[in-house]
């Protein structure tokens, strides 16, 4: 889905995000911009507050202060499901599939907003209901093929291999037709081959589906290869930002990762 904002405006603009849990400031003054058709990564050591920042952006936490603008709208006060309806969809660090449902059902549930949810129209199978259902099926089919999982469409999601589960989670986000996808450590637990496939998949999302991707990842090869822009967070504070090249040579980043030399 092409965002209806101008080319040089950011899709997502977060400013001075602060998230405080009692005395602990998990995220302290993080600002970031994601532009159209960009892959942006957030990196940082464990416990740096990356996932907390993600939870703020996707509405799972309401930030203590700061503003989040998505597609020219303030979203930091909205509940999570409304943010997702606006086209900002996320995955989770630990795969969260509907495990006892089949792959195709997972993809259909995700399209809840696209289908006709009227009770009577469903009971009587009206024309609009059938059309919407078959559209949903088509979209599901399209994404099954994209992530190469057509053969397992009727398998229960919980029985898939880990790599397949990861891919299904991304496909499940994509059937909602988002304009920004938030991926929380998508490569965690994948083998090098699977990571390579994931790399292609994410770049494909940007090139073919025209969406932006915001990524948390520890796999530096992946991050450096596909990112247009990188933000580094350390202990809740923004440490650096820039192109992969700049980040690679930034002494502060090296210090944060490797410790004082």
């Amino acid at each position, binding site marked *: 889905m092409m965002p209806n904002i101008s080319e040089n405006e950011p899709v997502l603009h977060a400013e001075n995000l602060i998230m405080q849990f009692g005395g602990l400031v998990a995220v302290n003054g993080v600002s970031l911009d994601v532009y159209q058709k960009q892959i942006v990564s957030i990196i940082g050591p464990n416990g740096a507050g990356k996932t907390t920042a993600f939870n703020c952006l996707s509405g799972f936490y309401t930030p203590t202060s700061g503003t989040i603008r998505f597609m020219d709208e303030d979203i930091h006060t909205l509940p999570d*499901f409304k943010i997702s309806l606006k086209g900002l*969809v996320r995955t989770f660090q630990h795969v*969260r*599939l*509907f*495990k006892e449902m089949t792959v195709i*059902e997972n993809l259909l549930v995700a399209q809840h907003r696209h289908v006709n949810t009227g009770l009577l129209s469903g009971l009587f199978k009206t024309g609009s209901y059938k059309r919407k259902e078959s559209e949903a099926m088509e979209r599901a089919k399209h994404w099954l*093929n994209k992530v190469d999982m057509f053969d397992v469409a009727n398998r229960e999601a919980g029985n898939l291999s880990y790599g397949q589960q990861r891919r299904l989670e991304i496909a*499940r986000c994509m059937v909602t037709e988002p304009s920004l996808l938030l991926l929380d450590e998508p490569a965690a637990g994948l083998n090098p081959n699977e990571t390579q496939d994931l790399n292609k998949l994410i770049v494909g999302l940007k090139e073919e589906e025209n969406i932006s991707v915001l990524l948390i990842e520890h796999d530096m090869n992946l991050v450096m290869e596909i990112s247009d822009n990188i933000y580094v967070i350390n202990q809740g504070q923004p440490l650096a930002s820039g192109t992969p090249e700049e980040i690679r040579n930034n002494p502060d980043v090296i210090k944060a990762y490797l410790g004082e030399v």
Partner: protein
Amino acid sequence: MKKNINHSLFTALITFIVSFPLLGLSLVSVNGSLTIQGADNSTMIMIGVAISIVFIFQLYREKILHMLGMLPTPSLPFKQAYKNSSLEKRTTLKKVFMVGLILCVIIWPFMSSRGAIDLATLVLIYVMLGLGLNIVVGLAGLLDLGYVAFYAVGAYSYALLSEYLGLSFWVALPIGGMLAALFGFLLGFPVLRLRGDYLAIVTLGFGEIIRILLNNFTSVTGGPNGISSIPKPTLFGMEFGRRVKEEGNTLFHEVMGIAYSSSYKVIFLYILAVILVIFTLFVIHRLMRMPVGRAWEALREDEIACRSLGLNRTAIKLSAFTIGAAFAGFAGCFFAARQGFISPESFTFIESAIILAIVVLGGMGSQVGVILAAIAMTVLPELARGFDEYRMLMFGLMMVLMMIWRPQGLAPAQRPHMEIKNDA
């Protein structure tokens, strides 16, 4: 085509083998001994016609089925066409089976005893309740221990509406369902944030509140004395009693011109329950395959993932509570009409527990399971009457053993298999 001719000849032969000895030959006793005789000419002609119909149908099977819209267009690749036709066959077979089953269920009461029909009607009420609670517990995964409250709301709706406003069963049935749904909606609001144990406690409390309210609101509900002489349902204004109770009604046996028998009423109530159950089964079967049904299950599986995908959990939980309660309301209405007398005694916690046991025993989320379990839960205690005071002990033991051997239930729910054609 050659294959078709062979196939058709074969089926025609089978038809002959099956029909000729049965219809074309008859045993006639001549002078005290049996002899075989050919049947008369018209029977022979009928057999001949039947054989030729089978032959022609099998010869042009594809074309005929295609004309009836039961087969995909033959331009599809062979494998896919084959696959689809087998699926079609399966669904047609399933339909035939369902119709046969329904016919059996409807014909059955005409050849069994009154007591058996009465028990079957009770089973059907529990099937309805089980199916309703199955939405809340089995599909949406919300543990509701106060489901009997909605049952009570439905029953008292009809009792009170008929006592104070003189409404008939058929008017009160939808109203009772809707009132129960309203109560489900109202209960849904405060408990939305609760999960698991906490939800169970609150719903348990709600069930008790309704019962205690009915017990103490003597001026309206008659308190522990209950409400008696609730009119039985009528069939297009026909009553099933010996004498007309309400003005303007006629009597069933008089209209039909048959002698009065008290079993007509029992059979009528039974068939009414069957219709209500079929209606419930149909609606819930569709709901499960609709977006709202998928959302219920998704919510049970992972609430956080649902939120991240833009599903409004408030609306989804409320819909589960409301729709589940509505079916309890229908069941309650019917219960009041069947009993003719209700009191808060009928709506104690043990009823909730039994309904919940039906859902769990059958297999969460499974409709077939609920039906089997409802039969088991009602019929087994009756069968065990021979054990006198050890009856409930036996019953409890059976439940325990069941949960050890088959914790997933009698007929666990199966995921719908979706046929997808890959034309990409």
